[in-house]
Protein backbone atom coordinates (compact mmCIF):
# COMPACT_ATOMS: atom_id res chain seq x y z
CA UNK A 1 0.00 0.00 0.00
CA UNK A 2 2.70 2.41 1.04
CA UNK A 3 4.87 1.36 -1.83
CA UNK A 4 2.03 1.98 -4.25
CA UNK A 5 1.42 5.43 -2.88
CA UNK A 6 5.07 6.39 -3.16
CA UNK A 7 5.11 4.91 -6.61
CA UNK A 8 2.17 7.00 -7.76
CA UNK A 9 3.80 10.10 -6.34
CA UNK A 10 7.19 9.60 -7.90
CA UNK A 11 5.99 8.39 -11.26
CA UNK A 12 5.12 11.26 -13.56
CA UNK A 13 1.44 11.24 -14.37
CA UNK A 14 0.78 11.10 -18.06
CA UNK A 15 -1.97 13.50 -19.02
CA UNK A 16 -3.98 12.23 -21.94
CA UNK A 17 -5.14 15.42 -23.55
CA UNK A 18 -4.40 14.27 -27.08
CA UNK A 19 -8.01 13.47 -27.79
CA UNK A 20 -9.10 17.09 -27.37
CA UNK A 21 -5.94 18.79 -28.59
CA UNK A 22 -5.71 21.03 -31.63
CA UNK A 23 -5.00 18.20 -33.99
CA UNK A 24 -8.35 16.70 -33.11
CA UNK A 25 -10.27 19.13 -35.28
CA UNK A 26 -10.51 17.89 -38.83
CA UNK A 27 -11.39 20.87 -40.91
CA UNK A 28 -13.48 20.84 -44.05
CA UNK A 29 -16.28 18.64 -42.74
CA UNK A 30 -18.83 21.38 -42.27
CA UNK A 31 -19.98 24.04 -44.78
CA UNK A 32 -18.95 26.81 -42.38
CA UNK A 33 -15.43 25.43 -41.91
CA UNK A 34 -13.99 27.71 -44.59
CA UNK A 35 -14.64 30.70 -42.32
CA UNK A 36 -13.26 29.03 -39.20
CA UNK A 37 -9.69 28.73 -38.07
CA UNK A 38 -9.55 24.98 -37.69
CA UNK A 39 -6.21 25.10 -35.94
CA UNK A 40 -7.78 26.92 -32.99
CA UNK A 41 -10.84 24.72 -32.70
CA UNK A 42 -12.67 23.06 -30.97
CA UNK A 43 -13.66 26.23 -29.15
CA UNK A 44 -13.48 26.60 -25.39
CA UNK A 45 -17.16 27.37 -24.87
CA UNK A 46 -19.10 25.15 -22.49
CA UNK A 47 -21.70 22.69 -23.53
CA UNK A 48 -24.96 24.57 -24.02
CA UNK A 49 -23.33 27.98 -24.32
CA UNK A 50 -25.09 30.40 -26.65
CA UNK A 51 -21.90 31.79 -28.12
CA UNK A 52 -21.49 29.01 -30.64
CA UNK A 53 -24.98 29.72 -31.92
CA UNK A 54 -24.22 33.42 -32.13
CA UNK A 55 -21.10 32.56 -34.15
CA UNK A 56 -22.95 30.27 -36.57
CA UNK A 57 -25.59 32.96 -37.14
CA UNK A 58 -22.86 35.50 -37.79
CA UNK A 59 -21.04 33.23 -40.24
CA UNK A 60 -24.29 32.36 -41.90
CA UNK A 61 -25.10 36.03 -42.48
CA UNK A 62 -21.59 36.66 -43.83
CA UNK A 63 -21.97 33.76 -46.24
CA UNK A 64 -25.27 35.14 -47.44
CA UNK A 65 -23.77 38.60 -47.94
CA UNK A 66 -20.86 37.11 -49.85
CA UNK A 67 -23.14 35.10 -52.08
CA UNK A 68 -26.01 37.50 -52.63
CA UNK A 69 -24.50 40.95 -52.14
CA UNK A 70 -21.09 40.20 -53.58
CA UNK A 71 -19.22 41.09 -50.41
CA UNK A 72 -15.48 40.63 -50.45
CA UNK A 73 -14.77 38.92 -47.14
CA UNK A 74 -11.19 40.20 -47.28
CA UNK A 75 -12.71 43.59 -46.53
CA UNK A 76 -14.37 42.40 -43.33
CA UNK A 77 -12.65 42.87 -39.99
CA UNK A 78 -13.80 41.42 -36.70
CA UNK A 79 -12.70 43.05 -33.45
CA UNK A 80 -13.41 41.69 -30.02
CA UNK A 81 -12.49 42.43 -26.46
CA UNK A 82 -11.87 40.17 -23.50
CA UNK A 83 -14.23 37.50 -22.26
CA UNK A 84 -15.73 34.30 -23.57
CA UNK A 85 -17.22 36.26 -26.46
CA UNK A 86 -13.83 37.77 -27.16
CA UNK A 87 -12.72 34.40 -28.45
CA UNK A 88 -14.85 34.85 -31.57
CA UNK A 89 -12.18 37.05 -33.18
CA UNK A 90 -9.75 34.18 -32.85
CA UNK A 91 -12.07 31.59 -34.33
CA UNK A 92 -13.17 33.31 -37.53
CA UNK A 93 -10.93 33.08 -40.58
CA UNK A 94 -11.23 36.79 -41.31
CA UNK A 95 -9.04 39.75 -40.50
CA UNK A 96 -9.55 39.93 -36.79
CA UNK A 97 -8.09 41.45 -33.70
CA UNK A 98 -8.44 40.53 -30.05
CA UNK A 99 -8.01 43.80 -28.14
CA UNK A 100 -7.55 44.59 -24.47
CA UNK A 101 -10.54 44.60 -22.17
CA UNK A 102 -13.24 47.06 -23.14
CA UNK A 103 -11.29 48.70 -25.94
CA UNK A 104 -12.69 46.82 -28.89
CA UNK A 105 -14.73 49.83 -30.03
CA UNK A 106 -11.83 52.37 -29.94
CA UNK A 107 -9.74 49.95 -31.97
CA UNK A 108 -12.58 49.47 -34.43
CA UNK A 109 -13.05 53.25 -34.64
CA UNK A 110 -9.46 53.68 -35.71
CA UNK A 111 -9.73 50.84 -38.15
CA UNK A 112 -12.86 52.26 -39.74
CA UNK A 113 -11.57 55.83 -40.00
CA UNK A 114 -8.20 54.78 -41.40
CA UNK A 115 -9.74 52.42 -43.93
CA UNK A 116 -13.37 53.37 -44.63
CA UNK A 117 -13.71 50.51 -47.12
CA UNK A 118 -13.55 47.95 -44.32
CA UNK A 119 -16.69 46.53 -42.80
CA UNK A 120 -15.82 46.53 -39.15
CA UNK A 121 -17.72 44.32 -36.74
CA UNK A 122 -17.21 44.42 -33.01
CA UNK A 123 -18.36 41.24 -31.28
CA UNK A 124 -17.95 41.26 -27.56
CA UNK A 125 -19.67 40.45 -24.33
CA UNK A 126 -21.83 42.56 -22.08
CA UNK A 127 -19.04 42.99 -19.55
CA UNK A 128 -16.73 44.23 -22.26
CA UNK A 129 -19.11 46.54 -24.10
CA UNK A 130 -21.49 47.76 -21.39
CA UNK A 131 -19.18 47.34 -18.40
CA UNK A 132 -15.59 48.37 -18.80
CA UNK A 133 -16.05 49.68 -22.34
CA UNK A 134 -19.37 51.41 -21.70
CA UNK A 135 -18.02 54.87 -22.36
CA UNK A 136 -16.54 53.89 -25.70
CA UNK A 137 -19.82 52.28 -26.64
CA UNK A 138 -21.96 55.36 -26.01
CA UNK A 139 -19.55 57.64 -27.81
CA UNK A 140 -19.29 55.44 -30.89
CA UNK A 141 -23.10 55.39 -30.94
CA UNK A 142 -23.22 59.16 -30.48
CA UNK A 143 -20.99 59.67 -33.51
CA UNK A 144 -23.09 57.24 -35.54
CA UNK A 145 -19.86 55.60 -36.57
CA UNK A 146 -20.34 53.14 -39.43
CA UNK A 147 -19.53 49.96 -37.52
CA UNK A 148 -21.64 47.07 -36.29
CA UNK A 149 -21.52 46.26 -32.60
CA UNK A 150 -22.78 42.85 -31.58
CA UNK A 151 -23.08 42.46 -27.84
CA UNK A 152 -23.58 38.93 -26.62
CA UNK A 153 -25.33 39.36 -23.30
CA UNK A 154 -25.29 36.45 -20.88
CA UNK A 155 -26.18 38.58 -17.82
CA UNK A 156 -22.92 38.09 -15.93
CA UNK A 157 -19.14 37.96 -16.10
CA UNK A 158 -19.03 34.37 -17.28
CA UNK A 159 -15.36 33.77 -17.88
CA UNK A 160 -14.32 34.85 -14.38
CA UNK A 161 -16.92 32.67 -12.69
CA UNK A 162 -20.28 34.42 -12.85
CA UNK A 163 -20.01 37.72 -11.00
CA UNK A 164 -22.64 40.45 -11.15
CA UNK A 165 -22.26 42.52 -14.28
CA UNK A 166 -23.88 45.64 -15.68
CA UNK A 167 -26.66 43.60 -17.25
CA UNK A 168 -27.48 41.20 -14.41
CA UNK A 169 -31.24 41.58 -13.89
CA UNK A 170 -32.57 43.01 -10.66
CA UNK A 171 -33.20 40.21 -8.11
CA UNK A 172 -31.30 37.65 -10.18
CA UNK A 173 -28.67 35.54 -8.45
CA UNK A 174 -25.00 35.52 -9.31
CA UNK A 175 -21.93 34.22 -7.62
CA UNK A 176 -21.39 37.60 -5.94
CA UNK A 177 -25.10 38.18 -5.32
CA UNK A 178 -26.32 35.02 -3.66
CA UNK A 179 -29.37 36.71 -2.11
CA UNK A 180 -30.40 38.59 -5.20
CA UNK A 181 -28.90 41.45 -7.14
CA UNK A 182 -29.96 44.79 -5.69
CA UNK A 183 -28.65 46.81 -8.63
CA UNK A 184 -30.62 47.60 -11.74
CA UNK A 185 -29.30 46.51 -15.12
CA UNK A 186 -28.74 48.37 -18.33
CA UNK A 187 -31.35 48.05 -21.03
CA UNK A 188 -28.79 47.88 -23.81
CA UNK A 189 -31.06 48.63 -26.81
CA UNK A 190 -32.39 51.67 -24.96
CA UNK A 191 -28.88 52.78 -24.07
CA UNK A 192 -27.76 52.40 -27.67
CA UNK A 193 -30.78 54.21 -29.08
CA UNK A 194 -30.52 57.02 -26.54
CA UNK A 195 -26.83 57.41 -27.32
CA UNK A 196 -27.54 57.81 -31.02
CA UNK A 197 -27.29 54.40 -32.67
CA UNK A 198 -29.28 54.26 -35.89
CA UNK A 199 -30.04 50.54 -35.94
CA UNK A 200 -30.94 48.66 -32.78
CA UNK A 201 -32.13 45.07 -32.45
CA UNK A 202 -32.23 42.28 -29.92
CA UNK A 203 -32.62 38.52 -30.30
CA UNK A 204 -32.03 35.51 -28.14
CA UNK A 205 -29.79 32.79 -29.48
CA UNK A 206 -32.85 30.59 -29.82
CA UNK A 207 -34.02 32.85 -32.64
CA UNK A 208 -30.96 32.03 -34.70
CA UNK A 209 -32.75 32.48 -38.00
CA UNK A 210 -34.07 35.94 -37.14
CA UNK A 211 -30.66 36.78 -35.76
CA UNK A 212 -29.10 35.78 -39.06
CA UNK A 213 -31.48 38.10 -40.96
CA UNK A 214 -30.92 40.92 -38.48
CA UNK A 215 -27.16 40.61 -38.75
CA UNK A 216 -27.40 40.86 -42.53
CA UNK A 217 -29.35 44.09 -42.11
CA UNK A 218 -27.04 45.41 -39.42
CA UNK A 219 -23.92 44.72 -41.48
CA UNK A 220 -25.29 46.55 -44.50
CA UNK A 221 -26.63 49.44 -42.43
CA UNK A 222 -24.63 52.62 -43.15
CA UNK A 223 -24.52 54.00 -39.59
CA UNK A 224 -23.91 52.60 -36.13
CA UNK A 225 -25.80 49.35 -35.81
CA UNK A 226 -26.22 47.56 -32.53
CA UNK A 227 -27.45 44.01 -32.05
CA UNK A 228 -27.88 42.53 -28.62
CA UNK A 229 -27.85 38.74 -28.45
CA UNK A 230 -29.26 37.18 -25.30
CA UNK A 231 -27.26 34.00 -24.78
CA UNK A 232 -27.48 31.36 -22.08
CA UNK A 233 -24.50 31.03 -19.77
CA UNK A 234 -24.88 27.36 -19.06
CA UNK A 235 -22.19 27.12 -16.41
CA UNK A 236 -22.21 30.31 -14.40
CA UNK A 237 -25.43 32.29 -14.59
CA UNK A 238 -27.93 29.49 -15.00
CA UNK A 239 -26.43 27.59 -12.07
CA UNK A 240 -27.88 30.17 -9.68
CA UNK A 241 -31.07 31.10 -11.44
CA UNK A 242 -34.39 29.34 -12.01
CA UNK A 243 -34.09 29.32 -15.81
CA UNK A 244 -31.32 26.76 -15.73
CA UNK A 245 -33.22 24.61 -13.23
CA UNK A 246 -30.48 25.25 -10.70
CA UNK A 247 -28.77 22.18 -9.35
CA UNK A 248 -31.50 19.75 -10.36
CA UNK A 249 -29.40 16.63 -11.06
CA UNK A 250 -31.51 15.61 -14.06
CA UNK A 251 -30.73 18.83 -15.84
CA UNK A 252 -27.20 19.32 -14.65
CA UNK A 253 -25.69 18.46 -17.99
CA UNK A 254 -28.35 20.30 -19.97
CA UNK A 255 -28.59 23.70 -18.33
CA UNK A 256 -28.00 25.54 -21.59
CA UNK A 257 -30.85 23.63 -23.15
CA UNK A 258 -33.15 24.45 -20.25
CA UNK A 259 -32.38 28.13 -20.68
CA UNK A 260 -33.04 27.92 -24.41
CA UNK A 261 -36.41 26.28 -23.71
CA UNK A 262 -37.08 29.09 -21.26
CA UNK A 263 -36.34 31.64 -23.99
CA UNK A 264 -38.85 29.83 -26.17
CA UNK A 265 -41.46 30.36 -23.47
CA UNK A 266 -40.70 33.96 -22.54
CA UNK A 267 -39.45 35.48 -25.81
CA UNK A 268 -41.88 37.97 -27.32
CA UNK A 269 -41.22 39.55 -30.71
CA UNK A 270 -42.28 43.15 -31.02
CA UNK A 271 -40.72 44.98 -33.97
CA UNK A 272 -40.59 48.75 -33.95
CA UNK A 273 -41.29 49.03 -30.24
CA UNK A 274 -39.74 52.04 -28.53
CA UNK A 275 -36.45 50.75 -27.09
CA UNK A 276 -37.46 52.14 -23.70
CA UNK A 277 -40.17 49.51 -23.51
CA UNK A 278 -37.93 46.72 -24.77
CA UNK A 279 -37.46 45.35 -21.30
CA UNK A 280 -36.34 42.07 -19.87
CA UNK A 281 -38.91 41.49 -17.15
CA UNK A 282 -37.89 39.62 -14.04
CA UNK A 283 -40.05 38.30 -11.22
CA UNK A 284 -39.18 38.50 -7.53
CA UNK A 285 -37.18 35.28 -7.70
CA UNK A 286 -34.96 36.71 -10.38
CA UNK A 287 -36.49 34.53 -13.06
CA UNK A 288 -36.82 36.18 -16.44
CA UNK A 289 -40.50 36.19 -17.35
CA UNK A 290 -40.45 38.25 -20.52
CA UNK A 291 -37.83 39.15 -23.11
CA UNK A 292 -38.92 41.62 -25.75
CA UNK A 293 -37.01 41.03 -28.94
CA UNK A 294 -37.05 42.32 -32.48
CA UNK A 295 -35.77 45.28 -34.45
CA UNK A 296 -36.49 48.38 -32.45
CA UNK A 297 -34.95 51.18 -34.42
CA UNK A 298 -33.93 51.82 -38.01
CA UNK A 299 -32.97 55.36 -38.93
CA UNK A 300 -31.10 56.75 -41.89
CA UNK A 301 -28.92 59.73 -41.15
CA UNK A 302 -25.35 60.74 -42.05
CA UNK A 303 -22.84 58.44 -40.45
CA UNK A 304 -19.53 59.58 -39.00
CA UNK A 305 -17.56 59.24 -42.22
CA UNK A 306 -20.09 61.15 -44.30
CA UNK A 307 -20.38 63.93 -41.72
CA UNK A 308 -16.61 64.16 -41.48
CA UNK A 309 -16.18 64.37 -45.25
CA UNK A 310 -18.78 67.14 -45.45
CA UNK A 311 -16.85 69.08 -42.82
CA UNK A 312 -13.57 68.47 -44.63
CA UNK A 313 -15.03 70.15 -47.72
CA UNK A 314 -16.01 73.20 -45.66
CA UNK A 315 -12.65 73.26 -43.90
CA UNK A 316 -10.88 73.06 -47.26
CA UNK A 317 -12.48 76.37 -48.33
CA UNK A 318 -11.41 78.09 -45.12
CA UNK A 319 -7.94 76.65 -45.41
CA UNK A 320 -7.52 77.98 -48.94
CA UNK A 321 -8.38 81.45 -47.63
CA UNK A 322 -5.90 81.13 -44.77
CA UNK A 323 -3.24 79.73 -47.04
CA UNK A 324 -3.57 82.72 -49.34
CA UNK A 325 -3.01 85.01 -46.34
CA UNK A 326 0.02 82.99 -45.28
CA UNK A 327 1.50 83.13 -48.78
CA UNK A 328 1.38 86.93 -48.60
CA UNK A 329 3.69 86.96 -45.57
CA UNK A 330 6.74 89.13 -45.89
CA UNK A 331 9.86 87.03 -46.02
CA UNK A 332 12.70 88.86 -44.33
CA UNK A 333 16.32 88.21 -45.06
CA UNK A 334 17.91 85.40 -43.10
CA UNK A 335 19.70 86.63 -40.01
CA UNK A 336 23.37 86.17 -40.58
CA UNK A 337 24.53 86.57 -37.01
CA UNK A 338 24.63 83.27 -35.17
CA UNK A 339 22.36 83.21 -32.12
CA UNK A 340 23.38 80.93 -29.24
CA UNK A 341 20.70 79.20 -27.16
CA UNK A 342 18.89 82.07 -25.45
CA UNK A 343 16.28 81.40 -22.82
CA UNK A 344 13.64 84.00 -22.03
CA UNK A 345 11.29 83.84 -19.07
CA UNK A 346 8.13 85.94 -19.15
CA UNK A 347 6.02 86.38 -16.04
CA UNK A 348 2.98 88.32 -14.88
CA UNK A 349 -0.60 87.66 -14.06
CA UNK A 350 -3.21 86.21 -16.35
CA UNK A 351 -4.75 88.72 -18.74
CA UNK A 352 -1.60 90.79 -19.22
CA UNK A 353 -0.79 88.98 -22.41
CA UNK A 354 2.16 87.00 -21.10
CA UNK A 355 1.29 84.02 -23.31
CA UNK A 356 0.75 86.13 -26.41
CA UNK A 357 3.98 88.04 -25.76
CA UNK A 358 5.86 84.74 -25.67
CA UNK A 359 4.12 83.61 -28.80
CA UNK A 360 4.97 86.87 -30.58
CA UNK A 361 8.66 86.51 -29.74
CA UNK A 362 8.68 82.87 -30.85
CA UNK A 363 6.87 83.67 -34.08
CA UNK A 364 9.15 86.60 -34.88
CA UNK A 365 12.16 84.36 -34.39
CA UNK A 366 10.86 81.22 -36.10
CA UNK A 367 8.76 82.62 -38.93
CA UNK A 368 10.29 85.98 -39.78
CA UNK A 369 13.92 85.54 -38.71
CA UNK A 370 14.44 81.89 -39.67
CA UNK A 371 15.69 80.94 -36.23
CA UNK A 372 14.63 77.97 -34.16
CA UNK A 373 12.18 78.75 -31.37
CA UNK A 374 10.40 76.86 -28.66
CA UNK A 375 7.53 78.17 -26.56
CA UNK A 376 6.02 76.67 -23.40
CA UNK A 377 3.47 78.02 -20.96
CA UNK A 378 2.71 77.61 -17.30
CA UNK A 379 -0.29 79.02 -15.53
CA UNK A 380 -2.71 78.35 -12.76
CA UNK A 381 -6.28 77.18 -13.25
CA UNK A 382 -7.60 80.75 -13.38
CA UNK A 383 -8.02 82.36 -16.76
CA UNK A 384 -7.51 85.94 -15.56
CA UNK A 385 -5.80 87.31 -12.47
CA UNK A 386 -3.79 84.24 -11.60
CA UNK A 387 -0.07 83.78 -11.92
CA UNK A 388 1.05 83.19 -15.49
CA UNK A 389 4.36 82.47 -17.05
CA UNK A 390 5.65 81.58 -20.46
CA UNK A 391 9.05 80.49 -21.64
CA UNK A 392 10.69 81.01 -25.00
CA UNK A 393 13.93 79.51 -26.24
CA UNK A 394 15.59 80.93 -29.35
CA UNK A 395 18.61 79.48 -31.09
CA UNK A 396 20.23 79.16 -34.50
CA UNK A 397 20.71 75.44 -34.06
CA UNK A 398 17.93 72.90 -33.33
CA UNK A 399 16.52 72.99 -29.78
CA UNK A 400 16.70 69.55 -28.25
CA UNK A 401 15.47 70.34 -24.76
CA UNK A 402 12.27 72.40 -24.67
CA UNK A 403 12.45 73.46 -21.02
CA UNK A 404 14.39 76.36 -19.54
CA UNK A 405 17.65 75.45 -17.83
CA UNK A 406 18.92 78.93 -16.89
CA UNK A 407 17.12 81.94 -18.37
CA UNK A 408 19.37 84.80 -19.41
CA UNK A 409 16.60 87.25 -20.10
CA UNK A 410 13.44 87.94 -18.13
CA UNK A 411 10.34 90.06 -18.70
CA UNK A 412 8.42 90.50 -15.44
CA UNK A 413 5.12 92.33 -15.15
CA UNK A 414 3.90 91.57 -11.63
CA UNK A 415 5.22 91.39 -8.09
CA UNK A 416 4.26 87.74 -7.75
CA UNK A 417 6.14 86.79 -10.89
CA UNK A 418 9.16 88.78 -9.66
CA UNK A 419 9.22 86.86 -6.37
CA UNK A 420 8.80 83.57 -8.17
CA UNK A 421 11.26 83.89 -11.01
CA UNK A 422 13.99 86.38 -10.12
CA UNK A 423 16.20 83.84 -8.35
CA UNK A 424 16.32 81.60 -11.42
CA UNK A 425 17.85 84.30 -13.62
CA UNK A 426 21.45 83.63 -14.66
CA UNK A 427 24.26 85.82 -13.35
CA UNK A 428 24.71 88.83 -15.66
CA UNK A 429 21.24 88.16 -17.04
CA UNK A 430 18.88 90.96 -18.00
CA UNK A 431 15.76 91.62 -15.95
CA UNK A 432 13.13 93.83 -17.56
CA UNK A 433 10.31 94.96 -15.30
CA UNK A 434 7.23 97.11 -15.44
CA UNK A 435 8.48 99.50 -12.76
CA UNK A 436 4.97 100.70 -11.93
CA UNK A 437 3.85 97.22 -10.99
CA UNK A 438 7.01 95.70 -9.57
CA UNK A 439 8.61 97.30 -6.52
CA UNK A 440 12.17 96.10 -6.13
CA UNK A 441 13.00 95.01 -2.59
CA UNK A 442 16.03 96.36 -0.74
CA UNK A 443 17.94 93.10 -1.13
CA UNK A 444 17.45 93.02 -4.89
CA UNK A 445 20.09 91.01 -6.75
CA UNK A 446 23.07 93.07 -7.80
CA UNK A 447 24.66 90.47 -10.07
CA UNK A 448 22.06 91.10 -12.77
CA UNK A 449 21.22 94.01 -15.01
CA UNK A 450 17.82 95.47 -14.08
CA UNK A 451 15.92 97.81 -16.38
CA UNK A 452 12.46 99.22 -15.89
CA UNK A 453 9.75 100.85 -18.00
CA UNK A 454 6.23 101.96 -16.98
CA UNK A 455 4.67 99.73 -19.64
CA UNK A 456 1.11 99.68 -18.33
CA UNK A 457 1.10 103.46 -17.95
CA UNK A 458 2.40 103.95 -21.50
CA UNK A 459 -0.20 101.59 -22.92
CA UNK A 460 -2.95 103.29 -20.91
CA UNK A 461 -1.94 106.68 -22.21
CA UNK A 462 -1.94 105.33 -25.77
CA UNK A 463 -5.55 104.20 -25.22
CA UNK A 464 -5.50 100.51 -24.27
CA UNK A 465 -3.82 99.11 -21.18
CA UNK A 466 -3.93 95.62 -22.66
CA UNK A 467 -1.11 96.64 -24.98
CA UNK A 468 1.31 96.75 -22.03
CA UNK A 469 2.91 93.49 -23.16
CA UNK A 470 3.73 95.06 -26.53
CA UNK A 471 5.55 97.92 -24.76
CA UNK A 472 7.60 95.36 -22.88
CA UNK A 473 8.31 93.54 -26.14
CA UNK A 474 9.60 96.73 -27.77
CA UNK A 475 11.75 97.36 -24.72
CA UNK A 476 13.09 93.78 -24.79
CA UNK A 477 13.79 93.86 -28.54
CA UNK A 478 15.92 96.98 -28.19
CA UNK A 479 17.78 95.78 -25.10
CA UNK A 480 18.51 92.24 -26.27
CA UNK A 481 18.67 92.65 -30.02
CA UNK A 482 18.27 88.93 -30.74
CA UNK A 483 15.28 89.38 -33.00
CA UNK A 484 14.98 92.15 -35.58
CA UNK A 485 12.62 95.03 -34.95
CA UNK A 486 10.99 94.43 -38.33
CA UNK A 487 10.39 90.77 -37.55
CA UNK A 488 8.77 91.69 -34.24
CA UNK A 489 6.51 94.23 -35.92
CA UNK A 490 5.36 91.68 -38.51
CA UNK A 491 4.73 89.18 -35.78
CA UNK A 492 2.71 91.67 -33.71
CA UNK A 493 0.67 92.73 -36.74
CA UNK A 494 -0.25 89.11 -37.33
CA UNK A 495 -0.97 88.22 -33.70
CA UNK A 496 -3.01 91.07 -32.22
CA UNK A 497 -6.65 91.82 -33.12
CA UNK A 498 -6.80 93.66 -36.47
CA UNK A 499 -8.35 96.82 -34.98
CA UNK A 500 -5.52 97.31 -32.50
CA UNK A 501 -2.60 96.75 -34.87
CA UNK A 502 -1.74 100.46 -35.22
CA UNK A 503 -1.99 101.12 -31.49
CA UNK A 504 0.18 98.11 -30.73
CA UNK A 505 2.82 99.10 -33.24
CA UNK A 506 2.85 102.64 -31.80
CA UNK A 507 3.46 101.48 -28.26
CA UNK A 508 5.95 98.89 -29.50
CA UNK A 509 8.02 101.68 -31.03
CA UNK A 510 7.71 103.74 -27.84
CA UNK A 511 9.07 100.80 -25.89
CA UNK A 512 11.77 100.25 -28.48
CA UNK A 513 12.97 103.85 -28.24
CA UNK A 514 12.98 103.63 -24.45
CA UNK A 515 15.02 100.44 -24.71
CA UNK A 516 17.56 102.02 -27.02
CA UNK A 517 17.88 104.95 -24.62
CA UNK A 518 18.34 102.73 -21.54
CA UNK A 519 20.21 99.77 -23.04
Amino acid at each position, binding site marked *: MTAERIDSKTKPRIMTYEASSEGD*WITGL*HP*MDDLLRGERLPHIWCQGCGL*GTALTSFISSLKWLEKRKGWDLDKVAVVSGIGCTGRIAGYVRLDSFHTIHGRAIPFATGLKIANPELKVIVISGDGDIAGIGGNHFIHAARRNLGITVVCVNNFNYGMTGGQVGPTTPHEARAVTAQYGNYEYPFNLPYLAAASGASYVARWTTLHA*RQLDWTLRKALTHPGFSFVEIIAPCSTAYSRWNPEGKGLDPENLRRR*GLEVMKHYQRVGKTDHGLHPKDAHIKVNERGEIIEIIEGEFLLETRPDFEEAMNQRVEIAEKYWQREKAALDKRVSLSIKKKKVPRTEIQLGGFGGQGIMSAGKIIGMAAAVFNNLEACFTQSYGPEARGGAAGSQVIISSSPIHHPHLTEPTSMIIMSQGAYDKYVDTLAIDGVLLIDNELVILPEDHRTDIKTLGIPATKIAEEAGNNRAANTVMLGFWTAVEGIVDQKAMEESIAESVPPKTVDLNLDVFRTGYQEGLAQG
Partner: protein
Amino acid sequence: MPLWRQPLDKDRILITHGIVHIIDDRCKGCGFCIEFCPQGTLGISDRTNTKGYHPPRVIEENLCVNCGLCTLLCPDFAIYIEDGGKQTPGLIHPVQRNEVKK
Protein backbone atom coordinates in the same frame (compact mmCIF):
# COMPACT_ATOMS: atom_id res chain seq x y z
CA MET B 1 -50.10 10.29 -35.86
CA PRO B 2 -51.62 8.36 -38.77
CA LEU B 3 -55.02 9.80 -37.84
CA TRP B 4 -53.83 13.31 -38.73
CA ARG B 5 -55.94 14.57 -41.60
CA GLN B 6 -54.16 14.27 -44.90
CA PRO B 7 -54.69 16.86 -47.66
CA LEU B 8 -56.44 15.66 -50.80
CA ASP B 9 -53.79 17.01 -53.18
CA LYS B 10 -51.04 15.32 -51.27
CA ASP B 11 -49.68 13.54 -54.35
CA ARG B 12 -49.10 16.83 -56.16
CA ILE B 13 -47.26 18.61 -53.36
CA LEU B 14 -43.50 18.68 -53.40
CA ILE B 15 -41.66 19.57 -50.25
CA THR B 16 -37.96 20.21 -49.84
CA HIS B 17 -35.91 17.43 -48.43
CA GLY B 18 -32.64 17.52 -46.58
CA ILE B 19 -29.99 14.96 -45.82
CA VAL B 20 -28.69 15.31 -42.27
CA HIS B 21 -24.96 15.03 -41.71
CA ILE B 22 -23.71 14.69 -38.16
CA ILE B 23 -20.03 15.04 -37.29
CA ASP B 24 -20.05 12.92 -34.15
CA ASP B 25 -16.72 13.86 -32.64
CA ARG B 26 -17.46 17.59 -32.64
CA CYS B 27 -20.67 17.20 -30.66
CA LYS B 28 -20.82 18.36 -27.02
CA GLY B 29 -24.28 16.97 -26.41
CA CYS B 30 -26.06 20.23 -25.66
CA GLY B 31 -29.25 18.90 -27.20
CA PHE B 32 -30.24 22.07 -29.08
CA CYS B 33 -30.73 20.31 -32.40
CA ILE B 34 -32.82 17.53 -30.90
CA GLU B 35 -35.01 19.88 -28.90
CA PHE B 36 -35.64 22.53 -31.50
CA CYS B 37 -35.90 20.52 -34.75
CA PRO B 38 -39.36 21.56 -35.94
CA GLN B 39 -39.89 18.14 -37.52
CA GLY B 40 -38.53 15.96 -34.74
CA THR B 41 -36.03 14.36 -37.07
CA LEU B 42 -33.39 13.87 -34.43
CA GLY B 43 -33.02 11.96 -31.20
CA ILE B 44 -30.25 11.09 -28.76
CA SER B 45 -28.14 8.15 -29.79
CA ASP B 46 -26.84 5.51 -27.41
CA ARG B 47 -23.28 5.62 -28.62
CA THR B 48 -20.74 8.07 -27.24
CA ASN B 49 -18.19 10.08 -29.13
CA THR B 50 -14.53 10.55 -28.23
CA LYS B 51 -15.43 13.29 -25.74
CA GLY B 52 -17.95 11.06 -23.99
CA TYR B 53 -21.09 12.83 -25.19
CA HIS B 54 -24.08 11.28 -26.86
CA PRO B 55 -24.36 12.85 -30.30
CA PRO B 56 -27.75 13.08 -31.99
CA ARG B 57 -28.97 10.51 -34.46
CA VAL B 58 -31.50 10.68 -37.26
CA ILE B 59 -34.73 9.00 -36.22
CA GLU B 60 -36.59 9.31 -39.50
CA GLU B 61 -34.72 10.55 -42.55
CA ASN B 62 -37.80 11.52 -44.53
CA LEU B 63 -38.93 14.00 -41.93
CA CYS B 64 -36.15 16.51 -42.63
CA VAL B 65 -37.38 19.42 -44.75
CA ASN B 66 -34.00 21.17 -45.13
CA CYS B 67 -34.87 24.16 -42.94
CA GLY B 68 -31.31 24.30 -41.63
CA LEU B 69 -32.24 25.38 -38.12
CA CYS B 70 -30.00 22.69 -36.59
CA THR B 71 -27.05 24.04 -38.61
CA LEU B 72 -27.66 27.49 -37.19
CA LEU B 73 -28.31 26.38 -33.64
CA CYS B 74 -25.46 23.93 -33.27
CA PRO B 75 -22.73 25.74 -31.31
CA ASP B 76 -20.05 23.22 -32.25
CA PHE B 77 -20.40 23.01 -36.05
CA ALA B 78 -21.29 19.36 -35.68
CA ILE B 79 -24.41 19.10 -37.83
CA TYR B 80 -25.40 20.34 -41.25
CA ILE B 81 -27.99 19.65 -43.89
CA GLU B 82 -27.35 18.85 -47.50
CA ASP B 83 -30.01 19.74 -50.03
CA GLY B 84 -31.77 16.54 -50.97
CA GLY B 85 -34.01 17.93 -53.68
CA LYS B 86 -37.77 17.73 -53.42
CA GLN B 87 -40.03 14.86 -52.73
CA THR B 88 -43.65 13.97 -52.28
CA PRO B 89 -44.34 13.46 -48.62
CA GLY B 90 -45.38 10.05 -47.47
CA LEU B 91 -47.47 11.40 -44.69
CA ILE B 92 -48.02 15.03 -43.77
CA HIS B 93 -47.07 15.37 -40.15
CA PRO B 94 -48.31 17.99 -37.78
CA VAL B 95 -45.76 20.41 -36.43
CA GLN B 96 -43.87 18.53 -33.79
CA ARG B 97 -44.79 19.40 -30.22
CA ASN B 98 -42.35 18.93 -27.42
CA GLU B 99 -44.66 16.62 -25.46
CA VAL B 100 -45.05 14.18 -28.29
CA LYS B 101 -41.37 13.50 -28.53
CA LYS B 102 -39.87 10.45 -26.87
